[in-house]
């Protein structure tokens, strides 16, 4: 997906998208008016602390800080921001939930609120307010945000994982359009390899890039790691089909993808060693920033993952939900802040600053010019609509999170693709690991 070493390269952002936004005094006026009219009135002398995932694009964080600052000016609520690497938010939030002390708000990854649903402030009113105002939540956002009839977190945004490819090399291989079906994609991968312009997906322990493509591949072929009752169903003919497909891809990838971590494909793509891969928009942003890589930015584009035999989109993108802890002394201030973050006047410039790294879960933001002023960003507009959830058919809580973080599916694919195990053994090993994780 992305990496922290690349962060320095993707600093800065376009001011273009922010031009439509209110600035300076007008923005402050608007913030104050909003605070007056908002259904949530922060408690007297309220102070909030928020722990968020550490940004990938500096400009996004700058905008975030400006937004928090505006909230403070409009409501008088002081906000303390701290940041952790996106994998580390979950352990910290779990400890805070258990001990009843820590930041009031946590902005983390995937199914964070579902790890301790009873410790999350009921934010149904915020979700309803935003949903009504901005065109209704997309399906995957509802799954990530809701437990039963209650919203326990607000899905702020996704970070998309989509195909990045070089245009000229693809055309040379005979593909004027990026393949939209898995069969066609395999032909593409083979043709690219033959032309000595190969690409690759990570098969090492890469939490972002590795997991997103193997889940796509499994789902595209109708495989599921669990059923609706969390019963392990990985050992299936569909999974075997997905494995065989992945192996066919792997054999035509650039060598060494079994060692890749999240940043390897960024490096290789920018170094022009590979010509297709899966990633967030960070490669494109970095290429645009670097004068020596301009030609890469001009010659690259993004595409959805191809559809498999199941015939519908089966992508997995990184969800970033926010939650307020029940131990907070200022639940109204928390709700006001969350609603404030997603108001169009705030969220639009924020998405703009992120240059496509942040994708919205509310359809009204489709209209943000960031998605259309540069058509290469457009695919990232739709990731929320196309994303499935990490739990697959099953529950979306800590078991699904553990299966992802333990690389169970990724290792199943890697062990088969690299020829370490046959399909039956790979599936049996994964089944055994999943049974360990999903035991009640």
């Amino acid at each position: 997906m992305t990496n922290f070493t690349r962060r320095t390269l993707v600093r800065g952002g376009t001011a273009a998208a922010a031009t439509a936004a209110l600035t300076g005094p007008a923005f402050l006026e608007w913030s104050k008016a909003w605070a007056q009219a908002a259904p949530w009135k922060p408690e007297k002398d309220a102070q909030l602390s928020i722990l968020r995932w550490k940004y990938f694009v500096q400009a996004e964080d700058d905008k975030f800080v400006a937004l928090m600052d505006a909230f403070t000016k409009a409501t008088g609520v002081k906000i303390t921001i701290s940041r952790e690497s996106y994998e580390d938010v979950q352990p910290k939030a779990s400890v805070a939930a258990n001990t009843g002390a820590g930041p009031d708000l946590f902005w983390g990854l995937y199914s964070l609120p579902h790890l301790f649903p009873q410790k999350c402030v009921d934010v149904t009113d915020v979700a309803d307010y935003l949903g009504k105002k901005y065109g209704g939540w997309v399906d995957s956002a509802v799954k990530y945000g809701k437990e039963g009839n209650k919203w326990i977190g607000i899905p702020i945004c996704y970070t998309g994982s989509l195909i990045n490819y070089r245009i000229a090399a693809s055309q040379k291989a005979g593909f004027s359009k990026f393949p939209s079906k898995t069969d066609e994609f395999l032909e593409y991968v083979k043709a690219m390899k033959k032309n000595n312009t190969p690409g690759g997906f990570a098969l090492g322990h890469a939490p972002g890039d590795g997991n997103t493509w193997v889940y796509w591949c499994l789902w595209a072929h109708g495989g599921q790691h669990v059923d609706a009752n969390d019963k392990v169903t990985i050992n299936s003919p569909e999974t075997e089909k997905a494995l065989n497909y992945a192996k066919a891809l792997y054999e035509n990838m650039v060598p060494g993808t079994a060692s890749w971590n999240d940043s390897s494909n960024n490096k290789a793509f920018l170094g022009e060693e590979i010509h297709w891969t899966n990633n967030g928009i960070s490669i494109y942003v970095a290429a645009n920033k670097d004068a020596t890589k301009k030609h890469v930015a001009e010659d690259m584009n993004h595409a959805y993952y191809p559809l498999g035999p199941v015939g519908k989109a089966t992508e997995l993108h990184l969800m970033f939900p926010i939650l307020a802890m029940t131990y907070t002394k200022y639940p109204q201030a928390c709700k006001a802040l969350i609603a404030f973050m997603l108001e169009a006047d705030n969220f639009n410039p924020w998405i703009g600053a992120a240059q496509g790294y942040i994708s919205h879960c509310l359809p009204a933001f489709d209209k943000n010019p960031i998605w259309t002023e540069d058509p290469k960003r457009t695919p990232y507009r739709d990731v929320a609509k196309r994303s499935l959830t990490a739990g697959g058919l099953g529950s979306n809580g800590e078991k699904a999170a553990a299966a992802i973080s333990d690389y169970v599916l990724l290792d199943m694919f890697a062990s088969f693709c690299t020829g370490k195990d046959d399909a039956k053994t790979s599936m049996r090993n994964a089944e055994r690991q999943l049974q360990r994780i999903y035991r009640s």
Partner: protein
Amino acid sequence: MAFISFHARREVNAFNPECPMTDVAIQNARPAPRAATTWDRLKVNRDWIALWFMLPTAAFLILFLAYPLGLGVWLSFTDARIGRSGVFIGLENYNWLSDDSVFWLSVFNTLLYTVVASAVKFAVGLYLALLLNQNMPFKAIVRAIVLIPFIVPTVLSAIAFWWIYDAQFSIISWSLRHMGLIDGNINFLGDSWNARWSAIVANIWRGIPFVAITLLAGLQTVSPSLYEAATIDGANRWQIFRHVTFPLLTPIIAVVMTFSVLFTFTDFQLIWVLTRGGPVNATHLMATLSYQRAIIGGHLGEGAAISTAMIPFLLAAILLSWFGLQRRKWQQGESND
């Protein structure tokens, strides 16, 4: 305190007109009733005083070493998750692990990593120490340079090795390719065995200075007169090493190798930066697997069980080197049998 009050009481008695001097003498001979308790005696007893001096250190060790260790072992018998205390589930975690191929792979990897890396570090380290012990120009600078791998923070050197082993940008692959020796890049970290050897080489590079410099310190304690005597007796270089240097070096070898084995066995940073245990868990050590399952995956109990499973290996390593290499009585200042 006790002495002062006793003294004060005597003064009071001396001025008490109702109390004759004889009584004072008797009172002096008899200790005050309060001082007779065992506790008071323990407070001033010379044999116990050592205990009082040890107490702060003991408290420190118990609080920061024994308690976390005990807690870790206890957690391994529970189903604790991060942020949630678990209930006792007996050996369930261990039962799952006993049948877990990834766990056994990590045990194999850890043993391979430790045995190979420690053996090479010892051999090369000893050789380097012998070289550095010779008289040569710029001795001090050369010795300082040897220490560099040890001084560089592990994470930094691991990142350097990560680039060296990169699938696309490896300088080794690049050089060999330009020399015309290979066609494609070497798959350092993408192939199970390549990845294992690559990680071991990185660990050896980092660990050698510690062994070399410590053994060098040991070499310098060997009296030159012994070498002179051996030379006069006509011993060749190998005999001098075998019968003079090596026996005198064994105590320090025991210490160095114990530490070296412990460091290697519990290595974490290098693997985490290089491969995160991949490809397909081929480089997962017990320490990295424990972290992945406990902290990233949230299964504290299971992670604790993996950590606890390391203890017997570590104990065995310690006992082996201490009893195997440190039996000679003269090392404790007695004559040899």
